[in-house]
């Protein structure tokens, strides 16, 4: 066997391997394109009422209607904007309160019962997140009627999942040493949590709450679509009365609010970390 022979051998092996990989890649791409085409056919091509779109100019004209801003709406926007902001704040605070017991149940190392209450805590986390905020709002509108209250409750319920999950994980990852020290000085259960656990988790929890609050501003902006207060309600009314310029105004207000939330949470997060 010479050196050139073994080189030729590994060259063959390499080209064979590469050919195989290329084939596999081509197959994956082919399947992806087929799948996308199937989806497009089912949703867009067969499901669209093409006759109603009525040509390029028609589409542009429809968009154009949104550009003629209805500036007369400004005075009507102020209160719902503030209400939306307040709903997000109160909903987040309430969500934090609900999250505390859920996180306590659902953190493996502090849960009062590993076999019964721990799964309950975990289930509540999943439940909160798997039900959309609009669905929560519908439930609460039917329970407590129209207005900001069902919106606040919906936001609180929807916030529990994320906040409690992150909190529970933070609790599970704490350093046990300070906990041991507080037990050793004769501290009770509350003191162990407050001195041993809380100082370790609060930066993570606060950052999460700020993030959730930021998201909740978006959520509270659409609550009104189902009658749960805030800017969404105004949006719904403009849409129903075909006042497209008004719709744009509401959207701009929402945008403004979200940018504001973004800026505030940026600075809050900096202050916490």
């Amino acid at each position, binding site marked *: 066997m010479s050196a050139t022979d073994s080189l030729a051998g590994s060259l063959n092996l390499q080209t064979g391997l590469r050919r195989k990989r290329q084939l596999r890649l081509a197959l994956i791409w082919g399947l992806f394109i087929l799948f996308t085409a199937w989806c497009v056919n089912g949703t867009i091509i067969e499901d669209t009422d093409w006759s109603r779109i009525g040509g390029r100019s028609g589409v542009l004209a429809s968009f154009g209607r949104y550009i003629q801003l209805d500036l007369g709406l400004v005075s009507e926007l102020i209160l719902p904007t503030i209400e939306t902001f307040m709903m997000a704040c109160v909903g987040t605070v309430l969500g934090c309160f609900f999250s505390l017991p859920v996180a306590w149940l659902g953190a493996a190392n502090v849960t009062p019962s590993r076999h019964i209450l721990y799964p309950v805590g975990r289930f509540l986390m999943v439940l909160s997140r798997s039900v959309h905020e609009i669905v929560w709002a519908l439930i609460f509108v039917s329970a407590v009627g129209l207005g900001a209250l069902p919106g606040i409750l919906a936001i609180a319920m929807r916030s529990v999942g994320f906040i409690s999950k992150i909190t529970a994980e933070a609790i599970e990852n704490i350093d046990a040493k*300070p906990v041991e020290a507080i037990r*050793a000085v*004769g501290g009770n259960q509350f003191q162990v949590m407050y001195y*041993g656990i809380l100082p370790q988790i609060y930066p993570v929890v606060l950052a999460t709450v700020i993030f959730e609050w930021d998201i909740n501003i978006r959520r509270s902006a659409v609550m009104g679509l189902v009658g749960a207060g805030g800017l969404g309600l105004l949006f719904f009314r403009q849409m129903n009365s075909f006042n497209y310029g008004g719709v744009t105004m509401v959207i701009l207000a929402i945008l403004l609010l979200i940018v504001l939330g973004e800026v505030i949470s940026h600075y809050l997060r900096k202050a916490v970390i």
Partner: protein
Amino acid sequence: MAVLSVRNLKVRYSGKGPEILKGIDFDVEGDDFLAIIGPSGAGKSTLIRCVNRLVEPTDGTITLLDQDVRALKPRALRELRRDVGMIFQEFNLINRMSVMDNVLSGRLGYTGNLRSLFRHFTKDDIRQALDFLERVGLSDHVDKRADELSGGQRQRVGIARALMQQPKLLLLDEPTSALDPKISQEVMALIREIAKELRVPALCNIHDVQLAKEFCNRIIGLQDGIKKFDGETRTLRDADLEDIYAMEVL
């Protein structure tokens, strides 16, 4: 009358796990500075944690300050723990709290929930904490966060926290193994000095035999959950040490 007396102490962490302590007997008298030496894995940390039931013994009796430790209900156990100051290998401080708050946390056993919620300790506690911080040489660091200090300083905070309890017994779990040799000497000297001053006996896990010989009046040698030596420091011979560390593979 011994401050602490341990008889036939056995510990097993789980039902079928290995026995960590296999029947240990010893006493701690009023002026003892007792070292527990032995190779790692011998059960030193487990033994010391049985005294205030941070670890639950499986068998035997522990009598501490005339109380049967194993029989205590949770509230009585917490009250007993208040009398036992503990100093840890890795200091076990609350990193995000100030030195002062860490020291004050030594009083939690005497502080109600509402007061603890607002970290509202009594004026006496605060005065006491300042005194102890001066005693351990940390007067200039009172308001710093605990994680800003060096290892030696952190252990001094740990010492001050234990002193806040006005302990009747000190448990020291490898107080120097996270420290360099010079600082270790200083810390051990400080602890012994304070223990003497306050007339508090101490039970000290330590793997450094030289430090044990230098600072402790009595030594217990532990090997694989069995007591191999128990006597005054001056009676410890090299042969005893070889016996204690016989199983350690270097």
